């Protein structure tokens, strides 16, 4: 395989940020050590049965919903979205800021406290108590082959 072909293959393997394929990969990644770490970071993992929403600012078409049951990610979707009243917390930020957290440059909680990622639905109490879980959740996106050009 030539270098050129290798490059082309890498490009096609990349998943568009917040696409359904990307969500499937993100959900699939939540097993083993990551799932345990995620669960431990939650305030009350056993009773954490919630849906979280993430949206790229100014791009309502780029929204994903993560369903967490008993502290474990069970479903992640960009197409089969939950009704608004079922969303526990919703975060909005630029793709570049989500990327910053995903690549480990800045913890997600710092982006929220710095106003780069905004909590647009949900309480600060829940966000504070589960801030470390948010760091784990978004930090794990860095392991996905993501095409951030959305």
């Amino acid at each position: 395989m030539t270098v050129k072909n290798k490059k082309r293959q890498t490009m096609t393997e990349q998943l568009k940020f917040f696409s359904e394929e990307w969500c499937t990969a993100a959900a699939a990644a939540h097993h083993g050590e990551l799932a345990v770490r995620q669960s431990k970071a939650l305030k009350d993992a056993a009773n954490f049965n919630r849906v979280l929403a993430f949206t790229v600012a100014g791009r309502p078409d780029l929204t994903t919903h993560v369903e967490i049951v008993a502290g474990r990610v069970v479903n992640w979707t960009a197409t089969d979205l939950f009704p608004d009243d079922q969303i526990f917390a919703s975060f909005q930020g630029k793709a570049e800021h989500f990327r910053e957290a995903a690549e480990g440059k800045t913890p997600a909680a710092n982006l929220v406290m710095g106003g780069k990622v905004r909590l647009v639905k949900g309480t600060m109490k829940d966000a504070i108590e589960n801030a470390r879980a948010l760091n784990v959740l978004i930090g794990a996106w860095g392991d996905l082959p993501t095409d951030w050009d959305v």
Partner: protein
Amino acid sequence: MPHPATRDYQVTLNDGPDANGMAGVVASLLEQNLEQFPARVRLARKLARPVTITGSDIDSTCTISCSPYDLTISNDVVGSPSVSVTATVDQILDLSQLKMRAGGLLPIGFFTRRGLRLLAAIAVGRLTVRGLITHPVTALRVIALLSVES
């Protein structure tokens, strides 16, 4: 830009849409805390001088100024604060999860693993509370105001 906080004690974000990240988060937190724990309005009214909070790892500062009628959050340092807290986001998250009793005068949260971690950080200067010695009651009251614990 007034927040629809408690009926008789409004939380105002002084810089409106130009509020920095820390000001926005602190305003949301205080607004929600005063709604959930209306007794804390009395506590806010006792804060005679401004208090500043700086996120040392996000380069963002806000000032909390209380009057008998309302509470204002401003960007950066405003007025002559009696207490200035400079902490990392992680430390601010820990501070806001300390259980405080008697309007902050009984800081039971400091006698937990989280609280002891914060005291250790204060002791070695990784978390600074300027005014802690001269205005200890104000420092404790502001922690009680920010606490998400009942």
